[in-house]
């Protein structure tokens, strides 16, 4: 028995899409299964890994925690939309140059989080870069190459001062 589906109209990567989806279908599944945009990945399905990150109405969001129907009327950007006229975006190019891709599974979500960062803050500090991608887990690269790629795209950013050693939670825990 096919459950009743809800009508949905949205714009994906500048292209209008119209269709239906069951109430409980996530935006992630809609993108992958009904719009055939499989760049966006499912890593955990509960909003903790960031592999599903897309940009909705200008904001990066976890698409596994959004219902498709909630995206009705929205502008959605996925990683497929970052290539323009056959050219990689500057950020994508930087990921290539800095070896920020290994298995590639975190990459679409990482790119969307980072691209959204650069659009709202063209000159992020290293701290701001780390905060922006804190919701995107990578099991392969150890993050350094990803941060370097993003830093390279931050116009006029000061040159990196060397490897950063993150302290526990950013401050030392002591009893004094």
């Amino acid at each position, binding site marked *: 028995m096919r*459950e*009743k589906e*809800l009508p949905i109209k949205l714009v994906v990567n500048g292209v209008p899409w119209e269709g239906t989806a*069951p*109430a*409980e279908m*996530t935006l992630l599944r809609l993108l992958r299964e009904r719009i055939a945009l499989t760049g966006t990945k499912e890593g955990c*399905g*509960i*909003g*903790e890994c*960031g592999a599903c*990150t897309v940009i*909705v109405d200008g*904001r*990066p*969001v*976890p698409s*596994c*925690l*959004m*219902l498709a*129907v*909630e995206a009705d009327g929205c502008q959605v950007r996925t990683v497929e939309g970052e290539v323009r006229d056959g050219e990689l975006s500057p950020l994508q190019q930087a990921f290539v140059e800095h070896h920020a891709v290994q298995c590639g599974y975190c990459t679409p979500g990482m790119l969307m*989080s980072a691209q959204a960062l650069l659009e709202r803050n063209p000159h992020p500090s290293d701290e701001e870069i*780390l*905060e*922006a991608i*804190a*919701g995107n*887990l990578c099991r392969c690269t150890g993050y350094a190459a990803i941060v370097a790629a993003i830093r390279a795209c931050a116009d006029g950013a000061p040159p990196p001062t060397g490897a950063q050693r*993150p302290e*526990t*939670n*950013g*401050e030392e*825990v*002591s*009893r*004094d």
Partner: protein
Amino acid sequence: MTAPQYERPNTIDGVVSLLAENSGDAALLAGGTDLLAQMRSRLVRPGLLVDVKGVEELRRLEQTDAGLSIGAAVILNRILEEQDRPELAALVQAVGELASYPIRNRATLVGNVTNASPCADTVPPLCAMGASVELQGPRGSRRIPVVEYITGNRETRRAADEVATQVTVPPLSRGTWSGFRKRKRVRGHDLALASVALLRDPERRRLRLAVGSCTPQPCLVELDDMYDRPDVDEANRRVQDGIHPIDDVRASIEYRRDMVEVMIRRLFVEMRG
């Protein structure tokens, strides 16, 4: 399992009617960052999802005579973007450490409160600030202080046919200082294994300490009697008496107690300037 239905009313009355008609089987949907994860894990199986984001008044984040009013549909990042008053520091710090930036583009403050996880980051600052929740239902509206609204692990005073429409932070005295600390296992997205909020209000001579992730219901300790001579050892003793943390995947009882003490000490140092 039958698939849920979805409705998106555009008035509060519409929300209340749907809740009343579907007694107990409807779930309110704002950010969905808790609800969808719970549905995914099959912890809840609502027959109806009532999306509150279609109600314009619930999207308001505004100063009123009653204080800062945060509507049910206001996402957490808007609080970071639009509120920079120093008296709200503890709340802004807590919001800034909640989950991750993309999650905060969906998750709402009211949702964080009414989901009522003992680890909720916004709850300790809201309790220290004396914030309250407004509920609307078929029997009218009522306002309950956050510290009383949450009664246990994911339990609140909200009836099944009521909707939490806003959280209000009452006007804080000029010169109010507040701070927040959250202890996590990692530097990124993680729940608090323990958290502490401290507030000092010089006009009302209030000193309030709230602790998160260490009790099923909110833990608020009033230290007004030591306002003139804050005694961090005594404050810590009172807090340690009032919390009963558990062992879980994030931390042991001992570590939580230890970290609560460290965070209290650091906040007292910060408060002294």
